[in-house]
């Protein structure tokens, strides 16, 4: 059958119009994926970290970096090593965020421990409060996320975070941070850091799940959040956190 150039243009034109309308509609409506077993309203995510169990191996930092393609030199999670001699300021270090763990310490007689840190997924988040356009937000299930295609890269949120967990992605030029592996937890998996922690120091928790171990942990242990006086309603709880930790 002979297809004339004119017919081609007609069909091609119609397809082009349909495609662009479709793309525009998708952009305009911006609705979330349909047919979902995951209901946001059923979850309220957080994390529990046990300081006494962390051995500073850095597996979590490496796993997070791999899972989330974190640019080198920036950190969605990191581990700090505290070495405290009585009567002196604590010596704290985090070589490359503990990406390769820590150099062996032979100094005996000090109070030493490791503190894994990440975004505290604050319910009253100061970083969300200061975003001028609504590019960062607390999701209905309690995770603080960044809208990559909306962020201006003004870095006001980076300044407002008391915990230093945000950074500007050097290639994307938007702000990046721990997403609590939102793409994993909404599919029934745990976060990359919790999955790969060999001692179980890090535990993903869901406050809305009545069977979640978090309820017993909070009831039976002394727990603390970082910088409680900031009243950020942080949702990362630390067991056995020493008062020297900043």
């Amino acid at each position, binding site marked *: 059958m002979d297809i004339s150039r004119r017919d081609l243009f007609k069909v091609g034109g119609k397809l082009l119009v349909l495609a662009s309308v479709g793309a525009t509609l998708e952009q305009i409506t911006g609705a979330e994926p349909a047919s979902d077993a995951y209901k946001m309203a059923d979850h309220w995510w957080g994390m529990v970290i046990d300081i006494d169990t962390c051995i500073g191996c850095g597996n979590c930092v490496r796993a997070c970096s791999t899972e989330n393609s974190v640019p080198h030199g920036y950190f969605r999670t990191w581990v700090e090593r505290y070495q405290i001699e009585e009567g002196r300021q604590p010596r704290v270090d985090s070589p490359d965020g503990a990406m390769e763990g820590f150099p062996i310490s032979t100094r005996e007689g000090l109070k030493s421990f490791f503190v894994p840190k990440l975004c505290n997924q604050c319910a009253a988040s100061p970083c969300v409060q200061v975003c001028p356009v609504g590019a960062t937000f607390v999701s209905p299930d309690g995770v603080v996320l960044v809208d990559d295609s909306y962020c201006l890269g003004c*870095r006001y949120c980076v300044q407002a*975070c008391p915990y*230093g967990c945000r950074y500007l992605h050097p290639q994307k030029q938007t702000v990046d941070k721990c997403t609590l592996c939102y793409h994993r937890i909404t599919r029934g998996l745990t976060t990359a850091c919790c999955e790969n922690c060999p001692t179980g120091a890090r535990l993903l928790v869901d406050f809305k799940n009545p069977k979640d171990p978090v309820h017993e942990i909070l009831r039976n242990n002394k727990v603390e959040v970082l910088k409680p006086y900031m009243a950020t309603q942080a949702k990362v709880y630390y067991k056995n956190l020493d008062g020297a930790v900043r």
Partner: protein
Amino acid sequence: MIAGVDGFMYPNEVELQWSVLIVLYPYITGLVAGAFILASLERVFKVEAVRPTYRLALLTALAFLLVAPLPLQLHLGHPERSFEMYLTPHTSSAMAMFGFVYLWYLTVVLLVEIWLEYRAEIVGLAQTSSGIRRLIYRALTLGSYNVSPEARRIDDKVGYAVTVIGIPSAFLLHGYVGFIFGSVKANPWWSTPLMPIVFLFSAMVSGIAAVMVLYVVSSKLRKVAIDMRCLDTIARYLFYTFVIDFTLEMLDLVHRTYESDESFRSLDFMVHTRLWFSQVILQIMLGTLVPLTILAANQLWRFSAGARKAMYMTAGGLTLIGIFAMRWNVVIGGQLFSKSFLGYTSYKVELVTREGLLPAIALMILPFVIFLVLIKLLPPWQEEKAG
């Protein structure tokens, strides 16, 4: 060991986020606010002595206001998305009001006031000039050639109302920047309710100093006599404003030292080391104490006109440097220490990058270029010829 870091910083804190461009932005809007306040002194508060600088102050404000968004645009990771601040402003963010306050101030206050002030000349020039200039003036008339005495009287009344609205608008234009810093509870160097007020008064100081310096320089270049009564009055208002500004900053310092909370030791160390030159030498000594002494001396004793001009120029120049140093110390200083209070980093100013020194210098020169164009287009000293 990370280069430039002493002690411990959270890993993401080592690199500074807000660069010299963010130092420049409040400096520029401060000059705008201050210049406008000086103009309003004559228009609203009837300080008739400063009339010779009225138009000059307005044009200075406009020249700097046009440049003000540029450092912000250069700083953004995605400047092409900055329009989002108009589309979906997040009302809990002080930064979100920038676009609206800026547009309001530019159009409803500054442009309207300048238009009303210059309308008679614009209409005249639209009829007497030729070529491109004639087209520009014709466009500026907005199609109306009515410059009858009644129309001019209405212009005057409306201009007065605009200036009255303009004063709180100028306060808002610059004060909100102070609030942007002052409301960040995560940063103890910034977080204080005094911040918007300190910003505002230092803005007025820098703006008044800028107009004063521009008046002297432009008079010298045009080889016209300087109205000493005008200059003395400006210097006097500069002195008053500076006293208030200095008092506020000292109050903040004394308060911090007295309360000596956890952040104090870390901040104190930072001032004594990394900020020693910019804060103690540049901002406090050279930028505040020396100009204050010069200006105070002129309130106590009478010097010759020549001596006064030299002293005012020195005081004005040092003030402008000092207020820039103050912005530097707030913005950069707030990022040099760790929020763990356990360490410090350094600011490596680059030269030719998007946020480097060269663009910053270019952005500081640009308002003067615009200013030259403006005074060619709308000469601020027409009334001298008219008598």
